[in-house]
């Protein structure tokens, strides 16, 4: 049981990831899908942040006076932080593109349901063939 509590944030991250994933797959509404996607991304940040954490340590911003004799055990791992940063930027960009895409889809099909959109397209195809 100790192990379980020790990795609690990771567990939370994984469950969140699952929730996001199922949302992405199951939600009909595209906006909800994107929310699911964001939950997924966020869970990864949580996971990464938890991985970067070291007990009894602070963010890796050193003071100028310490230069030359920095003890790395005092600080958390900067690498996951950098990764989280990148992840956030990517997720923001993707979200923006997806939202614009949704705007266009809504203009085109007047619906936010991806199944319905596909349905409309198939119908168009069939009419085309007639």
């Amino acid at each position, binding site marked *: 049981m100790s*192990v*379980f509590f*020790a*990795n*609690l*944030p*990771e*567990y939370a991250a*994984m*469950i969140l*990831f*699952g*929730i996001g*994933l*199922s949302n992405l*797959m*199951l939600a009909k509404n595209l906006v909800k899908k994107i929310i699911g996607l964001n939950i997924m991304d966020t869970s990864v940040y949580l996971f990464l942040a*938890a*991985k*970067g*954490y*070291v*007990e009894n340590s602070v*963010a*890796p*911003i*050193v*003071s*100028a006076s310490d*230069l*030359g004799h*920095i*003890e*790395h*055990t005092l*600080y958390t*791992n*900067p*690498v*996951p*932080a*950098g990764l989280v*940063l*990148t992840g*956030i*930027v*990517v997720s*923001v*960009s*993707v979200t*923006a*593109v997806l*939202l*614009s*895409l949704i*705007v*266009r889809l809504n203009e085109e099909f007047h619906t936010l349901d991806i*199944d319905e959109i596909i349905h409309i397209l198939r119908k168009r195809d069939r009419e085309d063939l007639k």
Partner: protein
Amino acid sequence: MNKEKRDRLYAVLCTVLTIVFISVMLFTVEKMPDLGRADNPDINEVMEFYVEEGPEETGALNAVTGMILHYRAFDTLGESCVLFVSAVCVFILLRIDGEASNDTLVAIDRRYEPTDDPILTQTFKLLVPAVFMFGIYITMNGHLSPGGGFSGGAIIGAALLLFLNAYGLEKTERFMSSQLYRRVTTMALCFYAVAKSYTFYTGANGLDSFEGAGTPGNILSAGLILPLNICVAVVVSMTIYSMYIMIRKGGFNK
């Protein structure tokens, strides 16, 4: 199989899949290194190097900034490019093509939200200068304290949006034209790319570079990190603004 049944089957399958996925991942996590232990595999020479040698070598007290803009600058260049291409994609999607007159642009402005709320407008007017200042500070001090180009740029972008909403399109677009956006973004990214190309080239070929660490702790220190932070901030803020304007009305003023 009719559509409903198929949907239900799909839902059940997805749920099962998710549950399986979560259980596998939980199992995996249990087998992974414990949280926060100092002897975890990721606390290794790399981390040690970034924290202990990094500030001295790069001149950036913030080890994260030093890492992302110096050691892993290529990643960060890629990140900026992600922003750039996502903006390009938003343009592709939303930009109203052809000889759309200003009138059409104004006509479709804010289709989905109320305009000119006085309370909001006034509050924005109050906040804008402070937010701008804050964003610039975060950017400029990115190598010394928490923050950096991305966060600063985001704040500046937010300030731009506030400005737009406080003073209206007409005023804003006097300076925020499509040309400005394009030129500034291009210049910032080009500078970033060219500068980093230079350091990559010198670094990889073992040549001396002009880049110096300076005195750690000063604003003007840490070599290229400060200019790069500024570039990143510019790109981020411009991207945020442009995306907003695209979603809002499908194009800049001519």
